[in-house]
């Protein structure tokens, strides 16, 4: 199915055009292309090692994996020519796998750090209003928060910036089911804000609840691009690429 998706030039709000990226010598993302409309939420699915996290990190312009070829365009801006901090300044926000809460800093300092570079998004008042738990713990060392609270902080940190594209990498990973439901509630609220989002998740069913559309990666290539409902309805597709 991989040959069916090839859109070289695009006017979409966000597009990834034939990107190839490497971790050292390992060829991980092997020509991924897709488009996302403004305000759309896309679940990026696939088995372990399919290149989901690598695709997100390439979009966020991380140092690794290294983008060797291809274009990434957000709102007309060529992301592929930028470094991570520049990508973040034009509105890309990656909430990374394992949340990457900054150690040795309080909850509030984590949020301050998110607003050092301009342009900024939500004020602290807005953040604390939406995340009362973080308000209670604002002076606490951030790494002492529970997994769920750390995930809230990671999402809040992204909202503290003026964001146009939210990249969520495994937001439910390692969380107890009851906490997953809480994060789900927060992400549904974020969805209402109309932020264009790509969500990578092992828990495909949970991701599809949020998403309008699903893209399935397989060995570094797009294997499926269609509606979220289609994936939920198509048992063969799920078995072949998602093992569910």
């Amino acid at each position: 199915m991989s040959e069916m998706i090839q859109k070289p030039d695009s006017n979409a709000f966000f597009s990834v055009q034939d990107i190839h990226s490497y971790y050292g010598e390992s060829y991980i993302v092997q020509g991924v292309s897709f488009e996302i409309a403004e305000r759309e939420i896309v679940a990026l699915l696939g088995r372990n090692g399919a290149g989901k996290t690598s695709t997100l990190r390439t979009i966020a312009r991380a140092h690794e994996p290294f983008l060797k070829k291809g274009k990434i365009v957000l709102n007309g801006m060529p992301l592929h020519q930028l470094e991570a901090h520049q990508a973040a300044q034009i509105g890309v926000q990656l909430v990374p796998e394992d949340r990457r809460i900054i150690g040795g800093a309080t909850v509030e300092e984590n949020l301050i750090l998110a607003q050092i570079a301009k342009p900024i998004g939500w004020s602290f008042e807005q953040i604390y209003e939406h995340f009362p738990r973080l308000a209670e713990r604002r002076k606490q060392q951030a790494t002492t928060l529970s997994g769920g609270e750390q995930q809230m902080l990671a999402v809040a940190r992204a909202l503290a910036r003026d964001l146009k594209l939210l990249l969520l990498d495994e937001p439910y990973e390692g969380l107890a089911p009851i906490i997953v439901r809480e994060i789900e509630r927060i992400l549904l609220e974020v969805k209402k804000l109309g932020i264009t989002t790509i969500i990578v998740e092992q828990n495909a069913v949970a991701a599809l609840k949020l998403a309008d559309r699903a893209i399935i990666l397989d060995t570094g290539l797009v294997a499926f691009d269609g509606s979220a409902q289609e994936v939920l309805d198509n048992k063969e597709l799920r078995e072949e690429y998602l093992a569910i």
Partner: protein
Amino acid sequence: MVNQIFLQIVTGLQLGAIYVLIALGLTLIFGTLGVVNFTHGALFMLGAFSAVIISGNYGFVAAIIIVPPFLFFFGVLMERFIVRFFYDRPHTDQILVTFGFAIVIQETLKWIFGSNNIPFKMPAWGRGILKLHEYVPFLDGFVAYPKWRFILITVSFFTVIALFALLQFTRFGMVIRAGMNDSEILSFLGINITRRFTLVFGLGSMIAGLAGVFAGPVTNVDPGLGMFYLVPSFLVVVIGGMGSLPGAVLASFLLGMAQSFTVSFAGLQAIVVYIVAVVVLLFMPRGLLGKKGVLD
């Protein structure tokens, strides 16, 4: 007896003060950039040479004003044009290139100034001795100590305070501390951490320059100076815990004291820093205040 112990403590403090001034920059650069900078001793030496020349021509105050900023810019250029290309390379490559650059600096200084010690004239206000028995009640008889060495301890003390204040209480410091933990996440938050790290390299070099200005008058100023202090200051960083600033301060004074208290045993004094290093690392492989994961 009391007099002697007191003097040895002061000597230990003074030796520690030199180590602190050199090791602070070294551990700061390692902790933030992850670079093992073997040029650091040479930067200290460059500071001492610049200080002795400037001080000879324009006075010591001019050296205090000019040398640290000069070393700051030297460090910034060094990071920008050499070190930056080695961030992703193994520590061994970093050591080779910075060690090589240290030799370039050393040989250049030798070429220009020759191999002999250049006498460093202290300013008038720093000469002479302090009669300690006039200030410290429990000392009896006549106990004196060179005034300059107290100035050195004082400068070292305030440099430590200033650096800690910069890191703890300013926004720049908050970014740097966060960058020591996870620089990538800061770049995802829009912060140009590379630019901050260049400044940190400059800052570390600037402290080495300051060390050169104030330690120059009590050490030899010759082209062997950099290498002479390189090894003990590295031991300080390792004993303190790679990248730990409080660890570097603690280890500096530990080594200073160890050397001071073995002064009567010439052979032992030469090797005591290594004995301390072996003992500490045997029982605390990450150093006194080293955190897990710095080298992982």
